[in-house]
Protein backbone atom coordinates (compact mmCIF):
# COMPACT_ATOMS: atom_id res chain seq x y z
CA UNK A 1 0.00 0.00 0.00
CA UNK A 2 1.23 3.48 -0.85
CA UNK A 3 1.76 5.60 2.24
CA UNK A 4 2.93 8.72 0.40
CA UNK A 5 2.28 9.90 -3.13
CA UNK A 6 3.97 13.00 -4.47
CA UNK A 7 2.72 14.33 -7.79
CA UNK A 8 4.35 17.08 -9.83
CA UNK A 9 5.57 18.94 -6.78
CA UNK A 10 7.17 22.28 -7.62
CA UNK A 11 8.64 25.13 -5.64
CA UNK A 12 10.63 28.15 -6.82
CA UNK A 13 12.48 30.75 -4.82
CA UNK A 14 12.91 33.95 -6.80
CA UNK A 15 13.00 32.19 -10.16
CA UNK A 16 15.24 29.35 -9.01
CA UNK A 17 13.54 25.97 -9.14
CA UNK A 18 14.24 24.31 -5.81
CA UNK A 19 11.92 21.46 -6.80
CA UNK A 20 10.41 21.01 -10.25
CA UNK A 21 7.70 18.51 -11.17
CA UNK A 22 8.83 15.90 -8.72
CA UNK A 23 6.74 12.73 -8.54
CA UNK A 24 7.27 9.49 -6.65
CA UNK A 25 5.52 7.19 -4.21
CA UNK A 26 6.57 5.37 -1.10
CA UNK A 27 5.37 1.90 -0.12
CA UNK A 28 4.33 1.39 3.47
CA UNK A 29 7.07 -0.18 5.59
CA UNK A 30 9.86 0.61 3.13
CA UNK A 31 12.87 2.91 3.20
CA UNK A 32 13.23 5.48 0.45
CA UNK A 33 16.67 7.01 0.15
CA UNK A 34 16.94 10.50 -1.32
CA UNK A 35 20.25 11.42 -2.87
CA UNK A 36 21.60 14.33 -4.78
CA UNK A 37 24.46 16.82 -4.71
CA UNK A 38 24.32 19.92 -2.52
CA UNK A 39 21.54 22.24 -3.68
CA UNK A 40 19.65 19.43 -5.42
CA UNK A 41 16.48 20.28 -3.48
CA UNK A 42 16.44 17.38 -1.00
CA UNK A 43 15.75 19.38 2.16
CA UNK A 44 13.26 21.58 0.28
CA UNK A 45 11.40 18.40 -0.66
CA UNK A 46 11.19 17.51 3.05
CA UNK A 47 9.99 21.04 3.84
CA UNK A 48 7.26 20.73 1.21
CA UNK A 49 6.08 17.32 2.44
CA UNK A 50 6.04 18.38 6.11
CA UNK A 51 4.34 21.72 5.49
CA UNK A 52 7.19 24.08 6.42
CA UNK A 53 7.19 25.47 2.89
CA UNK A 54 4.10 25.89 0.77
CA UNK A 55 4.41 24.29 -2.67
CA UNK A 56 3.73 26.32 -5.80
CA UNK A 57 2.06 23.36 -7.47
CA UNK A 58 1.56 19.64 -7.16
CA UNK A 59 -0.01 17.17 -4.76
CA UNK A 60 1.20 15.43 -1.64
CA UNK A 61 -1.01 12.56 -0.54
CA UNK A 62 -0.55 10.76 2.76
CA UNK A 63 -2.65 7.58 2.76
CA UNK A 64 -4.64 9.09 -0.14
CA UNK A 65 -5.40 12.22 1.90
CA UNK A 66 -4.14 15.40 0.26
CA UNK A 67 -1.89 17.21 2.73
CA UNK A 68 -0.88 19.95 0.30
CA UNK A 69 -0.47 23.25 2.13
CA UNK A 70 -1.47 21.92 5.59
CA UNK A 71 0.46 23.30 8.57
CA UNK A 72 3.33 21.19 10.01
CA UNK A 73 1.58 20.52 13.34
CA UNK A 74 -1.48 19.12 11.55
CA UNK A 75 0.70 16.99 9.26
CA UNK A 76 2.53 15.74 12.33
CA UNK A 77 -0.78 14.82 13.96
CA UNK A 78 -1.62 12.70 10.90
CA UNK A 79 1.49 10.63 11.63
CA UNK A 80 4.39 12.25 9.81
CA UNK A 81 7.56 12.73 11.85
CA UNK A 82 10.78 14.45 10.89
CA UNK A 83 14.35 15.09 11.93
CA UNK A 84 16.36 18.06 10.70
CA UNK A 85 19.67 18.44 8.90
CA UNK A 86 20.58 21.26 11.26
CA UNK A 87 19.79 19.63 14.58
CA UNK A 88 17.00 21.23 16.59
CA UNK A 89 17.02 19.73 20.07
CA UNK A 90 15.31 21.66 22.87
CA UNK A 91 18.72 22.49 24.27
CA UNK A 92 17.63 23.76 27.70
CA UNK A 93 15.59 20.67 28.43
CA UNK A 94 16.65 17.17 29.36
CA UNK A 95 16.64 14.29 26.92
CA UNK A 96 13.65 12.85 28.76
CA UNK A 97 11.72 16.14 28.52
CA UNK A 98 12.57 16.42 24.82
CA UNK A 99 11.04 13.03 24.12
CA UNK A 100 8.12 13.57 26.51
CA UNK A 101 7.09 16.66 24.52
CA UNK A 102 6.69 14.38 21.50
CA UNK A 103 4.97 11.69 23.56
CA UNK A 104 2.32 14.15 24.76
CA UNK A 105 0.90 14.20 21.24
CA UNK A 106 -0.49 10.70 21.76
CA UNK A 107 -0.51 10.44 25.54
CA UNK A 108 -1.90 13.23 27.70
CA UNK A 109 -1.24 11.56 31.05
CA UNK A 110 2.17 12.71 32.33
CA UNK A 111 3.17 9.38 33.88
CA UNK A 112 2.26 7.40 30.79
CA UNK A 113 3.96 9.96 28.53
CA UNK A 114 7.08 9.64 30.70
CA UNK A 115 6.99 5.83 30.53
CA UNK A 116 6.59 5.93 26.79
CA UNK A 117 9.44 8.44 26.46
CA UNK A 118 11.72 6.21 28.58
CA UNK A 119 10.85 3.21 26.41
CA UNK A 120 11.84 5.12 23.28
CA UNK A 121 15.01 6.50 24.87
CA UNK A 122 15.96 2.94 25.71
CA UNK A 123 15.25 1.96 22.08
CA UNK A 124 17.77 4.54 20.84
CA UNK A 125 20.31 3.40 23.46
CA UNK A 126 20.49 6.63 25.43
CA UNK A 127 18.79 5.57 28.65
CA UNK A 128 21.78 6.48 30.82
CA UNK A 129 21.68 10.02 29.40
CA UNK A 130 17.97 10.60 30.04
CA UNK A 131 18.50 13.31 32.65
CA UNK A 132 21.21 15.12 30.69
CA UNK A 133 20.36 18.43 29.10
CA UNK A 134 20.22 18.20 25.29
CA UNK A 135 22.98 20.81 25.03
CA UNK A 136 25.30 18.44 26.92
CA UNK A 137 24.96 15.64 24.38
CA UNK A 138 27.38 14.89 21.54
CA UNK A 139 26.30 15.31 17.90
CA UNK A 140 25.73 11.57 17.52
CA UNK A 141 23.65 11.51 20.68
CA UNK A 142 21.65 14.50 19.50
CA UNK A 143 20.91 12.63 16.26
CA UNK A 144 19.54 9.79 18.38
CA UNK A 145 17.60 12.30 20.47
CA UNK A 146 15.94 13.71 17.34
CA UNK A 147 15.06 10.22 16.19
CA UNK A 148 13.63 9.40 19.62
CA UNK A 149 11.63 12.61 19.69
CA UNK A 150 10.25 11.95 16.21
CA UNK A 151 9.35 8.38 17.20
CA UNK A 152 7.52 9.65 20.26
CA UNK A 153 4.68 10.96 18.09
CA UNK A 154 4.22 7.37 16.88
CA UNK A 155 4.75 8.25 13.22
CA UNK A 156 3.62 6.15 10.30
CA UNK A 157 6.11 7.98 8.11
CA UNK A 158 9.44 9.33 9.32
CA UNK A 159 11.54 11.76 7.29
CA UNK A 160 15.17 11.83 8.35
CA UNK A 161 17.49 14.51 7.04
CA UNK A 162 21.13 13.34 6.96
CA UNK A 163 21.20 10.90 9.85
CA UNK A 164 24.94 10.37 9.55
CA UNK A 165 25.86 13.93 8.54
CA UNK A 166 28.36 15.71 10.77
CA UNK A 167 29.27 12.71 12.94
CA UNK A 168 32.58 10.87 13.18
CA UNK A 169 33.22 7.58 11.35
CA UNK A 170 32.94 5.50 14.53
CA UNK A 171 29.43 6.78 15.23
CA UNK A 172 28.03 6.09 11.73
CA UNK A 173 27.55 2.27 11.97
CA UNK A 174 25.53 2.64 15.18
CA UNK A 175 23.23 5.19 13.57
CA UNK A 176 22.78 3.01 10.47
CA UNK A 177 21.88 0.06 12.69
CA UNK A 178 19.37 2.27 14.48
CA UNK A 179 17.69 3.15 11.17
CA UNK A 180 17.44 -0.56 10.34
CA UNK A 181 16.04 -1.25 13.81
CA UNK A 182 13.50 1.52 13.26
CA UNK A 183 12.38 -0.03 9.98
CA UNK A 184 11.69 -3.30 11.81
CA UNK A 185 9.11 -1.50 13.95
CA UNK A 186 7.06 -1.02 10.79
CA UNK A 187 7.59 2.69 10.32
CA UNK A 188 8.10 3.91 6.76
CA UNK A 189 11.25 5.98 6.34
CA UNK A 190 12.42 8.55 3.84
CA UNK A 191 16.02 9.45 4.45
CA UNK A 192 18.31 12.01 2.89
CA UNK A 193 21.88 10.84 2.93
CA UNK A 194 25.13 11.96 1.34
CA UNK A 195 26.89 8.69 1.98
CA UNK A 196 25.84 6.71 -1.09
CA UNK A 197 27.09 3.40 0.26
CA UNK A 198 24.79 3.73 3.26
CA UNK A 199 21.85 4.65 1.05
CA UNK A 200 22.47 1.58 -1.11
CA UNK A 201 22.69 -0.60 2.00
CA UNK A 202 19.51 0.47 3.75
CA UNK A 203 17.10 1.64 1.01
CA UNK A 204 14.39 -0.30 -0.76
CA UNK A 205 14.10 2.47 -3.33
CA UNK A 206 16.20 5.50 -4.15
CA UNK A 207 15.13 8.89 -5.47
CA UNK A 208 17.92 10.88 -7.10
CA UNK A 209 17.59 14.64 -7.50
CA UNK A 210 19.74 17.13 -9.32
CA UNK A 211 19.11 20.87 -9.63
CA UNK A 212 15.61 20.46 -8.25
CA UNK A 213 14.59 17.75 -10.73
CA UNK A 214 14.08 14.05 -10.37
CA UNK A 215 16.77 12.33 -12.39
CA UNK A 216 16.14 8.75 -11.30
CA UNK A 217 13.87 6.63 -9.14
CA UNK A 218 14.11 2.92 -8.55
CA UNK A 219 15.84 0.12 -6.71
CA UNK A 220 19.38 0.80 -5.46
CA UNK A 221 20.99 -1.42 -8.12
CA UNK A 222 19.27 0.47 -10.95
CA UNK A 223 20.28 3.81 -9.48
CA UNK A 224 23.85 2.63 -9.03
CA UNK A 225 24.16 2.09 -12.77
CA UNK A 226 22.21 5.16 -13.86
CA UNK A 227 24.41 7.38 -16.00
CA UNK A 228 22.68 10.63 -14.98
CA UNK A 229 23.19 9.81 -11.33
CA UNK A 230 26.82 8.95 -11.86
CA UNK A 231 27.32 12.18 -13.77
CA UNK A 232 25.61 14.18 -11.04
CA UNK A 233 27.99 12.74 -8.47
CA UNK A 234 31.01 13.08 -10.79
CA UNK A 235 32.37 9.66 -9.97
CA UNK A 236 31.71 6.21 -8.74
CA UNK A 237 29.71 5.16 -5.72
CA UNK A 238 32.73 3.67 -4.02
CA UNK A 239 34.50 6.99 -4.33
CA UNK A 240 31.49 8.71 -2.76
Amino acid at each position, binding site marked *: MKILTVENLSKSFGGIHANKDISFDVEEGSILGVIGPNGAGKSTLFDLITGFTKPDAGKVKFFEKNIFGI*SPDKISNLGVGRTFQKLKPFAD*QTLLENVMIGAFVKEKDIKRARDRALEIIDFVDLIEKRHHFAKELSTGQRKRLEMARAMAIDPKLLLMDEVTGGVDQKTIPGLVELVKKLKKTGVTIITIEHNINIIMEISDNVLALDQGKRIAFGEPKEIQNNKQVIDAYLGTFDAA
Partner: protein
Amino acid sequence: MTSEIILQAIVTGLMMGLIYALIAAGLSLIFGLMEIVNFAHGEHLMLSMFSSFWLWSLFGLDPLFSIPITILLMAFCGIITHYFLIRYILKAKMLIQICATFGLSIFIRSIAQLLWTPDFRNVDKPLLEGRIEIGSVFIGQPQLYASLVCLVAFFGLYWFVTKTETGLALQATAQDRHAAEILGIPSNKMFAIGWAIGLGCVGVAGGMMANYFFIFTDVGINFALFAFVAVALGGFGSIIGCLYAGIIIGLVESLGGLLIDPSFKLLYVFVIYLLVVIYKPQGLFGRY
Protein backbone atom coordinates in the same frame (compact mmCIF):
# COMPACT_ATOMS: atom_id res chain seq x y z
CA MET B 1 19.70 55.16 61.62
CA THR B 2 18.43 52.18 63.55
CA SER B 3 18.38 48.55 62.50
CA GLU B 4 14.56 48.65 62.81
CA ILE B 5 14.33 51.21 60.04
CA ILE B 6 16.63 49.17 57.81
CA LEU B 7 14.58 46.05 58.54
CA GLN B 8 11.44 47.98 57.68
CA ALA B 9 13.00 49.02 54.34
CA ILE B 10 14.02 45.43 53.60
CA VAL B 11 10.49 44.13 54.25
CA THR B 12 8.97 46.91 52.14
CA GLY B 13 11.48 46.21 49.34
CA LEU B 14 10.79 42.48 49.45
CA MET B 15 7.04 42.99 49.19
CA MET B 16 7.37 45.37 46.26
CA GLY B 17 9.97 43.11 44.65
CA LEU B 18 7.56 40.18 44.54
CA ILE B 19 5.06 42.32 42.64
CA TYR B 20 7.75 43.46 40.21
CA ALA B 21 8.74 39.81 39.78
CA LEU B 22 5.27 38.71 38.70
CA ILE B 23 4.83 41.65 36.31
CA ALA B 24 8.27 40.89 34.84
CA ALA B 25 7.47 37.16 34.58
CA GLY B 26 4.58 37.95 32.23
CA LEU B 27 6.83 40.11 30.11
CA SER B 28 9.61 37.53 30.11
CA LEU B 29 7.27 34.68 29.18
CA ILE B 30 6.05 36.55 26.13
CA PHE B 31 9.57 37.53 25.10
CA GLY B 32 10.93 34.03 25.69
CA LEU B 33 8.19 32.53 23.58
CA MET B 34 8.32 34.71 20.49
CA GLU B 35 11.16 37.20 21.03
CA ILE B 36 8.79 40.13 20.99
CA VAL B 37 9.06 42.81 23.67
CA ASN B 38 5.65 43.94 24.84
CA PHE B 39 6.14 47.68 25.24
CA ALA B 40 2.46 47.91 26.17
CA HIS B 41 3.02 45.83 29.32
CA GLY B 42 2.59 48.88 31.57
CA GLU B 43 -0.65 49.78 29.84
CA HIS B 44 -1.90 46.23 30.30
CA LEU B 45 -1.12 46.63 34.00
CA MET B 46 -3.11 49.87 33.98
CA LEU B 47 -6.04 48.07 32.32
CA SER B 48 -5.99 45.37 34.99
CA MET B 49 -6.07 48.01 37.74
CA PHE B 50 -8.97 49.77 36.03
CA SER B 51 -10.72 46.42 35.67
CA SER B 52 -10.55 45.99 39.43
CA PHE B 53 -11.63 49.57 39.98
CA TRP B 54 -14.66 49.40 37.71
CA LEU B 55 -15.74 46.02 39.05
CA TRP B 56 -15.67 47.63 42.49
CA SER B 57 -17.24 50.90 41.39
CA LEU B 58 -20.02 49.48 39.22
CA PHE B 59 -20.78 46.14 40.89
CA GLY B 60 -19.42 46.62 44.40
CA LEU B 61 -16.96 43.75 43.98
CA ASP B 62 -13.97 44.11 46.24
CA PRO B 63 -10.63 43.78 44.32
CA LEU B 64 -9.86 40.69 46.34
CA PHE B 65 -12.92 38.93 44.92
CA SER B 66 -12.72 40.40 41.43
CA ILE B 67 -9.20 39.04 40.87
CA PRO B 68 -10.41 35.94 38.93
CA ILE B 69 -12.51 38.16 36.65
CA THR B 70 -9.59 40.54 36.12
CA ILE B 71 -7.29 37.62 35.31
CA LEU B 72 -9.78 36.27 32.76
CA LEU B 73 -10.30 39.70 31.22
CA MET B 74 -6.56 40.23 30.90
CA ALA B 75 -6.03 36.73 29.50
CA PHE B 76 -8.71 37.48 26.92
CA CYS B 77 -6.99 40.80 26.20
CA GLY B 78 -3.77 38.84 25.62
CA ILE B 79 -5.45 36.50 23.14
CA ILE B 80 -7.02 39.47 21.31
CA THR B 81 -3.63 41.22 21.21
CA HIS B 82 -2.05 38.14 19.70
CA TYR B 83 -4.68 37.44 17.09
CA PHE B 84 -5.25 41.04 15.98
CA LEU B 85 -1.73 42.39 16.12
CA ILE B 86 1.15 40.15 17.12
CA ARG B 87 0.62 37.27 14.68
CA TYR B 88 0.92 39.73 11.80
CA ILE B 89 4.32 40.95 12.94
CA LEU B 90 5.88 37.67 14.03
CA LYS B 91 8.13 37.49 11.00
CA ALA B 92 8.59 41.25 10.68
CA LYS B 93 11.84 43.09 11.39
CA MET B 94 12.56 43.93 15.01
CA LEU B 95 12.01 47.66 14.45
CA ILE B 96 8.51 46.96 13.15
CA GLN B 97 7.80 44.75 16.15
CA ILE B 98 9.00 47.47 18.52
CA CYS B 99 6.88 50.10 16.77
CA ALA B 100 3.85 47.81 16.87
CA THR B 101 3.86 47.15 20.62
CA PHE B 102 5.01 50.71 21.39
CA GLY B 103 2.15 51.95 19.22
CA LEU B 104 -0.19 49.62 21.08
CA SER B 105 0.90 51.18 24.37
CA ILE B 106 0.09 54.69 23.10
CA PHE B 107 -3.21 53.46 21.68
CA ILE B 108 -4.31 51.83 24.94
CA ARG B 109 -3.26 54.80 27.06
CA SER B 110 -4.97 57.29 24.76
CA ILE B 111 -8.20 55.30 24.68
CA ALA B 112 -8.08 55.01 28.48
CA GLN B 113 -7.62 58.77 28.82
CA LEU B 114 -10.47 59.38 26.42
CA LEU B 115 -12.81 57.01 28.24
CA TRP B 116 -11.82 57.54 31.83
CA THR B 117 -9.97 60.92 31.84
CA PRO B 118 -6.50 61.20 33.42
CA ASP B 119 -8.06 61.57 36.91
CA PHE B 120 -6.65 59.64 39.83
CA ARG B 121 -9.00 57.07 41.33
CA ASN B 122 -8.83 54.64 44.19
CA VAL B 123 -10.83 51.82 45.71
CA ASP B 124 -12.45 53.19 48.82
CA LYS B 125 -12.37 51.01 51.93
CA PRO B 126 -11.23 47.71 50.40
CA LEU B 127 -11.41 44.57 52.51
CA LEU B 128 -7.65 44.58 52.83
CA GLU B 129 -6.93 47.58 54.98
CA GLY B 130 -4.78 48.56 57.90
CA ARG B 131 -1.46 47.20 58.96
CA ILE B 132 0.01 44.61 61.22
CA GLU B 133 2.96 45.02 63.54
CA ILE B 134 5.59 42.32 63.83
CA GLY B 135 8.17 43.39 66.37
CA SER B 136 9.21 46.83 65.30
CA VAL B 137 8.18 46.34 61.66
CA PHE B 138 4.89 47.65 60.33
CA ILE B 139 3.45 45.84 57.37
CA GLY B 140 0.51 47.18 55.40
CA GLN B 141 -2.04 44.39 54.95
CA PRO B 142 -2.82 45.20 51.29
CA GLN B 143 0.91 45.21 50.48
CA LEU B 144 1.50 41.99 52.40
CA TYR B 145 -1.34 40.11 50.76
CA ALA B 146 -0.50 41.51 47.35
CA SER B 147 3.08 40.26 47.64
CA LEU B 148 1.96 36.86 48.94
CA VAL B 149 -0.61 36.44 46.18
CA CYS B 150 2.04 37.43 43.62
CA LEU B 151 4.48 34.92 45.12
CA VAL B 152 1.89 32.13 44.95
CA ALA B 153 0.97 33.13 41.39
CA PHE B 154 4.64 33.18 40.50
CA PHE B 155 5.24 29.64 41.72
CA GLY B 156 1.97 28.56 40.10
CA LEU B 157 3.29 29.93 36.82
CA TYR B 158 6.65 28.24 37.32
CA TRP B 159 4.97 24.91 38.07
CA PHE B 160 2.71 25.27 35.03
CA VAL B 161 5.57 26.05 32.68
CA THR B 162 7.94 23.35 33.94
CA LYS B 163 5.62 20.51 34.93
CA THR B 164 2.57 20.45 32.69
CA GLU B 165 2.07 19.27 29.15
CA THR B 166 1.12 22.76 27.93
CA GLY B 167 4.04 24.28 29.83
CA LEU B 168 6.52 21.92 28.20
CA ALA B 169 4.95 22.67 24.84
CA LEU B 170 5.38 26.39 25.55
CA GLN B 171 9.03 25.83 26.41
CA ALA B 172 9.52 23.74 23.28
CA THR B 173 7.95 26.45 21.11
CA ALA B 174 10.12 29.08 22.80
CA GLN B 175 13.29 27.14 22.03
CA ASP B 176 12.54 26.04 18.49
CA ARG B 177 9.25 26.76 16.83
CA HIS B 178 9.82 24.42 13.88
CA ALA B 179 10.96 21.49 15.99
CA ALA B 180 7.88 21.96 18.17
CA GLU B 181 5.55 22.14 15.17
CA ILE B 182 6.76 18.84 13.77
CA LEU B 183 5.85 17.30 17.12
CA GLY B 184 2.26 18.41 16.56
CA ILE B 185 2.45 21.56 18.69
CA PRO B 186 0.59 24.44 16.99
CA SER B 187 2.86 27.45 17.49
CA ASN B 188 0.13 30.00 16.86
CA LYS B 189 -1.98 28.51 19.65
CA MET B 190 1.05 28.43 21.95
CA PHE B 191 1.74 32.10 21.26
CA ALA B 192 -1.87 32.96 22.11
CA ILE B 193 -1.59 30.93 25.33
CA GLY B 194 1.67 32.73 26.13
CA TRP B 195 -0.01 36.11 25.75
CA ALA B 196 -2.97 34.98 27.83
CA ILE B 197 -0.70 33.79 30.65
CA GLY B 198 1.60 36.81 30.38
CA LEU B 199 -1.25 39.26 30.72
CA GLY B 200 -2.94 36.99 33.29
CA CYS B 201 0.13 37.58 35.49
CA VAL B 202 -0.35 41.30 35.04
CA GLY B 203 -4.01 40.77 35.96
CA VAL B 204 -3.01 39.23 39.30
CA ALA B 205 -0.51 41.99 40.08
CA GLY B 206 -2.77 44.83 38.92
CA GLY B 207 -5.80 43.39 40.70
CA MET B 208 -3.95 43.24 44.02
CA MET B 209 -2.30 46.64 43.54
CA ALA B 210 -5.73 48.20 43.03
CA ASN B 211 -6.18 47.76 46.79
CA TYR B 212 -3.62 50.40 47.68
CA PHE B 213 -2.37 52.27 44.62
CA PHE B 214 -3.95 55.23 42.94
CA ILE B 215 -5.39 54.17 39.60
CA PHE B 216 -4.78 56.45 36.64
CA THR B 217 -3.94 56.09 33.00
CA ASP B 218 -0.16 56.54 33.39
CA VAL B 219 0.15 54.26 36.41
CA GLY B 220 1.77 51.44 34.44
CA ILE B 221 4.72 53.38 33.04
CA ASN B 222 7.09 53.08 35.99
CA PHE B 223 6.10 49.51 36.71
CA ALA B 224 6.77 48.57 33.10
CA LEU B 225 10.20 50.18 33.29
CA PHE B 226 10.98 48.17 36.41
CA ALA B 227 9.69 45.06 34.69
CA PHE B 228 12.06 45.65 31.76
CA VAL B 229 14.96 46.05 34.19
CA ALA B 230 13.89 42.87 36.01
CA VAL B 231 13.71 40.92 32.75
CA ALA B 232 17.16 42.18 31.68
CA LEU B 233 18.64 41.47 35.11
CA GLY B 234 17.03 38.04 35.46
CA GLY B 235 17.82 37.14 31.87
CA PHE B 236 15.53 37.46 28.86
CA GLY B 237 13.19 34.51 28.74
CA SER B 238 14.00 33.24 32.24
CA ILE B 239 11.01 33.12 34.55
CA ILE B 240 12.92 32.17 37.70
CA GLY B 241 15.38 34.97 36.88
CA CYS B 242 12.50 37.43 37.21
CA LEU B 243 11.94 36.38 40.83
CA TYR B 244 15.52 37.09 41.86
CA ALA B 245 15.65 40.26 39.77
CA GLY B 246 12.31 41.56 41.07
CA ILE B 247 13.45 41.10 44.67
CA ILE B 248 16.83 42.72 43.97
CA ILE B 249 15.12 45.71 42.36
CA GLY B 250 12.62 46.02 45.21
CA LEU B 251 15.42 45.96 47.77
CA VAL B 252 17.65 48.38 45.86
CA GLU B 253 14.78 50.80 45.43
CA SER B 254 13.80 50.63 49.08
CA LEU B 255 17.25 50.53 50.69
CA GLY B 256 18.72 53.02 48.21
CA GLY B 257 15.92 55.43 49.01
CA LEU B 258 16.51 54.98 52.70
CA LEU B 259 20.29 54.97 52.84
CA ILE B 260 21.15 57.54 50.17
CA ASP B 261 18.37 59.78 48.94
CA PRO B 262 14.73 58.83 48.30
CA SER B 263 14.43 61.26 45.39
CA PHE B 264 16.99 59.18 43.47
CA LYS B 265 15.50 55.75 44.13
CA LEU B 266 14.60 55.25 40.46
CA LEU B 267 18.16 56.12 39.56
CA TYR B 268 19.59 53.26 41.62
CA VAL B 269 17.46 50.76 39.77
CA PHE B 270 18.55 52.07 36.39
CA VAL B 271 22.20 52.05 37.45
CA ILE B 272 21.74 48.32 38.02
CA TYR B 273 20.20 48.02 34.58
CA LEU B 274 23.18 49.75 32.98
CA LEU B 275 25.63 47.57 34.89
CA VAL B 276 23.80 44.45 33.71
CA VAL B 277 23.76 45.62 30.10
CA ILE B 278 27.48 46.41 30.20
CA TYR B 279 28.88 43.51 32.23
CA LYS B 280 26.37 40.66 31.94
CA PRO B 281 24.06 41.37 28.99
CA GLN B 282 22.56 37.88 29.11
CA GLY B 283 21.37 38.57 32.70
CA LEU B 284 21.56 36.21 35.67
CA PHE B 285 19.76 33.26 34.09
CA GLY B 286 19.25 34.29 30.47
CA ARG B 287 19.84 32.24 27.37
CA TYR B 288 20.10 35.21 24.96
